[in-house]
């Protein structure tokens, strides 16, 4: 299973295994991790699952136009590695992701 390490605003970290086809957003909710809201359920509509993807950017397709436009309006400032975590679904079994969770989503 792919693993995701969520790095929080206070510097703490948590690593979880992600079942196949589960997004990084869903993984956070499933494991009661703070800082990711995912209000719209993963349809690129709310912008409340913003993360900074620390590496493995090449693993994912670049943001769609919709995601790109939503990222302009996230509560925490956008950076070059900003993504909506509902759109990040790792498929390689051994993938190891690190995402930083911003201090606010709403």
């Amino acid at each position, binding site marked *: 299973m792919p693993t995701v390490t969520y790095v929080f605003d206070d510097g703490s970290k948590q690593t979880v295994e992600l079942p196949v086809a589960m997004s990084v957003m869903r993984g956070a909710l*499933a*494991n*009661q991790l*703070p800082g990711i809201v995912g*209000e*719209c*359920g993963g349809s690129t*509509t709310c912008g409340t699952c913003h993360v900074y993807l620390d590496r493995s950017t090449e693993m994912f397709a670049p943001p769609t136009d*919709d995601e790109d436009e*939503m990222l302009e309006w996230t509560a925490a400032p956008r950076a070059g590695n900003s993504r909506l975590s509902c759109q990040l679904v790792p498929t390689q079994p051994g993938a190891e992701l690190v995402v930083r969770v911003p201090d606010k989503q709403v």
Partner: protein
Amino acid sequence: METAAALRGHGYAGPLTIVGGEAHLPYERPPLSKGQLEDGADAAGTPLRPEQFFTDADVALLRGPAVEVDRLRQIVYVGGERWIGYDHLVLATGSRPRRLDLPGVALRGVTTLRTLDDALALRRQLATARRIVVLGAGFIGMEIASAAVKRGVEVTVLEVNERVLSRSVTTPVSTAVAAHHRAHGVQLCLGERAARVVGRDGRATGVLTEWGRLLPADLVVLGVGAVPEDDLARRAGLAVDGGVLVDRSLTTSDPLISAIGDCAVVGDPVTGARRRLESIQNATDQGRYVAARILGELRPYRAVPWFWSNQGSLKLQMVSLAREYDDLVVTGDGDRFSVLCLLNGRLAAVESVNDPGTHMAARRLLGRSVPTETELLAVGYDLRALARRTTAAA
């Protein structure tokens, strides 16, 4: 679900029980009229949390339904003669499809969509249906029409109003949505009422309109709005009027009981009017708010409502509801535009079609102070420019 998760997330350590009315784990409802109707969608739906969550977070999930609330004893009776006591009770009972008082609606092949089981049944029926009639051109009806036509089913939508989505959006958006559906082969019959569902051998075979037109169908879907599920509250003697009445902190007439989501009637922060909303954002925002309030939050609930709907390849996003306006300004063009609704010289609501940037800007603007028309004019009604400027100044 959202209240329970937020309570645990913010450190509440006491007992916590969710009483649900269905056999499934609590799940996302928005996909039911969208992706869930497509082939290959998971029959378990999209659970809000995996089963493991309930163990890990120590949240009991009781398959109900809840049948009675005894407010004196602070007890909820659950189906199967079980009961559970409470210090605080949150009513999140939602809404149910409005039934049409129409001859023939009891025939087999007449259906509504609310639950995952409804969606699974509808998907099965769509797999073999040749033509369907959807009664009602609201969000759910039109989303079902989209899904059906995509599956190669002939679709006719019958709507008593002169335009689609008339309860929810302004005319420019209705026009764009109607054109999109028509271009994809959906037959729209607007301004026409159904007289009866006709059938043979107990099974629906079509809809007869008030003008005597027969629309043949092997499946009839009712999408004529929802009514609040407030029976439990009414029987418990809570104040109920088109939903469970709540004050600005979402408390019912009993201080130990809150109501949230589709079933609750609450004051609107922008207009001050009393309002019941049917949207996921409203449900989750209110759910999180009540959790915070139970843990000591003193401020009243205040969130600008927003909605979205996928209509074929059109992505509709709305901030606030344009029930009343005295001027409309359309920005953008073609398949990508926004409608600014103005009331008394101020921005009241914004509807966007394939224009997520303007939608997000509008949410940010309306969440702070409501822009005046003068401010809007100064930026040529470009909400993104205004929101950037406001953010930079803050």
